[in-house]
């Protein structure tokens, strides 16, 4: 941040003015805005980050459930189920998340309220958090369907056949054989999806949900210190990503325990 000061040439006539600009952009006066005490917006940013992580966790988890169901339906379902799931994944992967969020947000809240009035209840105000999680989960579900389908296909067929030959019911087969055996194949794709989920939460700013990006925009608009706040939010997102990557590496190693290394010598 201090590097900016070196650009000031002493012979410049506008030196005082430029110094003011640089100090106001990078200097102590705007960094104070990030403090946790009430004049600073630091606490708000962290609250926004917490909301973002909450939505990402919820959407990723719910998407995973949709994905497991979707993958099973695509692999073992009847022809109609397969075609419907194919339509779902194709449409979701071809339409921008922003458009889907708007459609699902409006249509979802509209539908629930119409249902409530039809049942004789007053219309409810849908919780933004729940709506955000639901909308992003539908998007995540389509991608994780594809990831999990590929991972299940990568399991050596004999393992599932052996389990069937032992007379395992489908639920037990899923829990004991399919899910653990596909995990090493699914984790790289799922890790990618988790990182996409954390970044997709920013899109909810467009529908006005106060997660990290929206909070940042409000803070920046109120204080006019756009650069400082967007940089701070960028650092928060980046540290979330880097922290996730550390965890993902551990999970990947854990899921591959007992398996021979697949990565060749580099």
């Amino acid at each position, binding site marked *: 941040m201090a590097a900016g000061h070196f650009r000031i040439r002493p012979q410049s006539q506008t030196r005082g003015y*430029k110094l003011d600009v640089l100090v106001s952009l990078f200097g102590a006066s705007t960094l104070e805005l990030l403090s946790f005490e009430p004049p600073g917006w630091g606490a708000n940013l962290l609250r926004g980050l917490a909301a973002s992580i909450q939505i990402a966790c919820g959407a990723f988890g719910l998407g995973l459930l949709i994905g497991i169901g979707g993958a099973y339906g695509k692999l073992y379902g009847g022809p109609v189920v397969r075609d419907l799931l194919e339509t779902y994944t194709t449409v979701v992967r071809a*339409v921008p998340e922003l458009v889907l969020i708007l*459609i699902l947000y409006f249509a979802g809240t509209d539908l629930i309220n119409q249902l409530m009035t039809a049942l004789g209840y007053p219309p409810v105000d849908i919780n933004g958090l729940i709506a955000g999680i639901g909308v992003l989960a539908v998007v995540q579900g389509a991608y994780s369907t594809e990831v999990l389908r590929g991972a299940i296909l990568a399991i050596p067929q004999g393992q599932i056949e052996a389990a069937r030959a032992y007379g395992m019911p489908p639920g037990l087969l899923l829990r004991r054989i399919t899910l653990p055996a596909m995990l090493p194949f699914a984790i790289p794709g799922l890790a990618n999806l988790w990182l996409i989920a954390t970044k997709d939460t920013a899109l909810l700013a467009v529908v006005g949900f106060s997660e990290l990006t929206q909070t*940042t925009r409000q803070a920046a608009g109120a204080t006019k210190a756009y650069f400082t706040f967007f940089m701070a939010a960028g650092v928060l997102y980046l540290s979330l990503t880097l922290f996730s990557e550390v965890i993902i590496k551990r999970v990947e190693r854990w899921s591959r325990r007992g398996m021979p290394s697949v990565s060749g010598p580099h």
Partner: protein
Amino acid sequence: MSEALAIPLRRRVMGWLQPHRIVLILIALAIVMAAAIFMRWDWLPQYMPLALQGIWRTIWLLVVTSALGLAIALPLGLVQVTGPIWLAVPAKAFCTIIRGTPLLLQLWLLYYGLGSLFPQFPWIRESFLWPYLRQAWPYGVMALTISYAGYEGEVMRGAFAGVPRGQLEAARAFGMSRWKVFRRIWLPQAIHRALPTLAGETVLQLKATPLVATITMVDIYSVASRVRQETFITYEPLLLLALVYMAITGVLVFLFRKLEARIPSRLG
């Protein structure tokens, strides 16, 4: 590919058109007909010119930012594989930062952050670039370009690293210069390896373009929002918008498939 083509077209169509599919298609047609009859489309003629302009703007944005981004991504990927450490580390850091933060945040940082920074410097206000820097589209193009470059830099790194070493050594043994090796052997094989991923990433880039509507650029998405705000019709413009994006995605996938089919896939 060639096997699928060997089956006559009629049999392929018949194989695809099973009884349950016919029923599903009829149901889908019924839904479309119901949407066409019972929903409101009277706004369509009035906004048609604007919508066409928006579609054109979206496609323009996609093509320009993908081309520029790929041009930046090639050196980014290359220096991470073969470059000196003082180039490889910044390239890696750039890719990590771009891939680790949301595009919406990058866009707003450039538009609001840089946009509020520039007017404070008199020499920028006096430069010939100033008329452009006052508009929104350079920031949109910039944000989408560096985003594509960041993701594709990582893809190209993998593609460059994946070209077998023996190929490059053989080319050197033939007496090709380093530049010629790059141009004739390394780059074509890396592109060929990266092409399926590039197709997917370009679709993702298309899906990222509506974000520029948040900084007042007029693409097809912002046309749909405008219809919604001016006529209070919610679903019709959004559904049509989804249809437009699906059509563009379909064309993109088709074009990339054609491109992939043109390259013979026998390697080594």
